[in-house]
């Protein structure tokens, strides 16, 4: 492992272990206040752990025991670049000088550093703004310059805290594409609220909630078979957790969900999770009876257009239906509905 990380910060209820292999990218997902930025701060050296250690390429960066810091490499000596959530461009330097700051600080000559800066600015599509003052940039432009500045520092470990927030649709795919290219060989931890970033950029995903890692795995696995509500929400899947009854999963609310089980021989009572896609869910105004299907009662909480379809949400489930259906059924927030899904569409697996 290039990066191994295990740290606690009792003040913030933070207790996380992570590792990232050389050249890989880990995406940290999780709700606001989960501890994503805290994890990055601990790795960058802008925060000190209460307990734990961080090592990079086998070199200990910090080691703390019960609040005593025993090893401490200061931030500038870590070769870890952190792009924070706020752009924080140095207000007294031009855009080019901002991006050249990392190379210059690491001993590059002005000419080389400026050339590197111009390359990075081109990568984020802002070569033409090189001589501007940061105060004259728009919010999204500033964020892109900050990305370029972090990349230009050529760190051993790159930490990106929501680099895509505030970018426009036109530039996001382009930047995502160049990041994909640039991060190919780069050991990176990225936090994001956009599942596309994770899908496209990350080899692995860790979901943090309430200061703990609640889920961890290869990107495709986590998004296909999420175990946490949060991962399911980002993956856009419905997820119901409960215990195995022998032929289905009983949730704490007492609903039983039938679906594909991974095999026989499961003990009754073991924790299981049922997962299904919103597109597989149908919406009715009254209860349906018939061949094997799962039916859930709910109240519509929101309607969101989603491409050609409309996503209908009830408390804990989502269904994707056509706009016509919405019109025919007169779906509005507050409407009482039955959601149903064929057992064949439901995956059930332990966890």
């Amino acid at each position, binding site marked *: 492992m290039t990066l191994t990380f295990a740290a606690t910060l009792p003040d*913030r209820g933070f207790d996380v272990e992570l590792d990232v292999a050389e050249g890989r990218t880990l995406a940290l997902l999780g709700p606001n206040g989960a501890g994503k930025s805290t994890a990055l701060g601990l790795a960058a050296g802008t925060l000190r752990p209460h307990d734990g250690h961080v090592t990079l390429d086998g070199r200990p960066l910090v080691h703390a025991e019960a609040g005593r810091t025993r090893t401490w490499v200061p931030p500038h000596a870590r070769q870890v670049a952190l792009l924070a959530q706020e752009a924080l461009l140095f207000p007294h330097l031009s855009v080019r000088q901002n991006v050249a700051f990392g190379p210059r600080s690491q001993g590059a000559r002005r000419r080389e550093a400026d050339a590197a800066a111009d390359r990075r600015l081109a990568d984020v599509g802002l070569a033409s703004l090189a001589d501007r003052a940061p105060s004259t940039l728009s919010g999204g432009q500033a964020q892109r310059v900050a990305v370029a500045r972090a990349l230009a520092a050529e760190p051993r470990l790159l930490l990106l805290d929501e680099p895509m927030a505030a970018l426009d649709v036109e530039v996001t795919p382009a930047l995502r594409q160049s990041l994909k290219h640039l991060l190919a060989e780069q050991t990176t931890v990225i936090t994001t609220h956009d599942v596309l970033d994770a899908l496209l950029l990350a080899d692995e995903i860790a979901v943090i909630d309430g200061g703990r890692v609640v889920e961890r795995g290869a990107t495709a696995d986590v998004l296909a078979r999420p175990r946490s509500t949060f991962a399911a929400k980002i993956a856009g899947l419905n997820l119901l957790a409960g215990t195995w009854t022998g032929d289905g999963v009983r949730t704490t609310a007492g609903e039983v969900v039938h679906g594909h089980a991974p095999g026989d021989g499961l003990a009754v009572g073991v924790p299981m999770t049922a997962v299904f896609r919103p597109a597989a869910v149908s919406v009715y105004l009254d209860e349906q009876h018939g061949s094997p299907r799962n039916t859930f009662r709910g109240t519509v909480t929101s309607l969101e257009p989603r491409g050609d379809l409309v996503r209908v949400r009830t408390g804990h489930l989502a269904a994707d239906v056509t706009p016509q259906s919405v019109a025919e059924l007169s779906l509005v927030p507050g409407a009482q509905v039955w959601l149903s899904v064929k057992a064949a569409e439901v995956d059930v697996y332990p966890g």
Partner: protein
Amino acid sequence: MTSLVPGPHRASHRPSGTVRPAGEPAVGLPRWAFVPAAVGGLLVLLPLVAMGSRVDWSSFASLITSESSLAALGLSLRTAATSTLLCLVLGIPMALVLARARFAGLDLLRSLVLVPLVLPPVVGGIALLYTFGRRGLLGSSMEVLGVQIAFSTTAVVLAQTFVALPFLVISLEGSLRTAGTRYDVVAASLGARPTTVLRRVTLPLVWPGLASGTVLSFARALGEFGATITFAGSLQGVTRTLPLEIYLQRETDPDAAVALSFLLVLVAVLVIASTRTHRRVR
């Protein structure tokens, strides 16, 4: 908000036993900075130590509790407090105007406001006499109104305010510029009138600068001598502040002067230490 450890511990790649709060931001101060800082600290502290070693501590108590010393101390504290208040009342608006207003001649005005800093205080006192004295610029018109300022306690306050005002203005102006106006803009857009913005946002945000400015001007007012003796004279209980008392004692009893200076320093340190200048801001 910010905390940085003293040098020796910071850049250690080797294990070390430092205890410091977890979670604190941890960005370093260059280690070499502690060397000139220590030299500077010694330059200021050694003379104090040397002075302390010469004080005749056995007679210290009786000296500083003599009637004339106590009168001078009381007068000094009263006048310095009043001048500091005046400096705040006049200086905060001046700093705001210098930092944020924009009109022709502002740069010249900024330089002129600094003049009392550079004027030898006695010359400042003469200038004040030329202005507020009986035969001064405003003196005759004020005499008509029955006001006479020179050689009164008012004159002491005026002299102290004159010399101390630039300190407040300059250090507050620097802080105002460093802080910028982003938060003020937000406050205004939430419907706060300029006065409300000033009271609830601008001044709290520049609190460290305002506090240093206040301390600077209080200290300058407390130590003021030259302008006071020239403009206000040296009458016990009326205009003879502690520095004037020290000056007089020195003519006849240099040891007593040193002891009284120690009293002045003590008072200043107590007053300054009781004002927390470093409220957490961010």
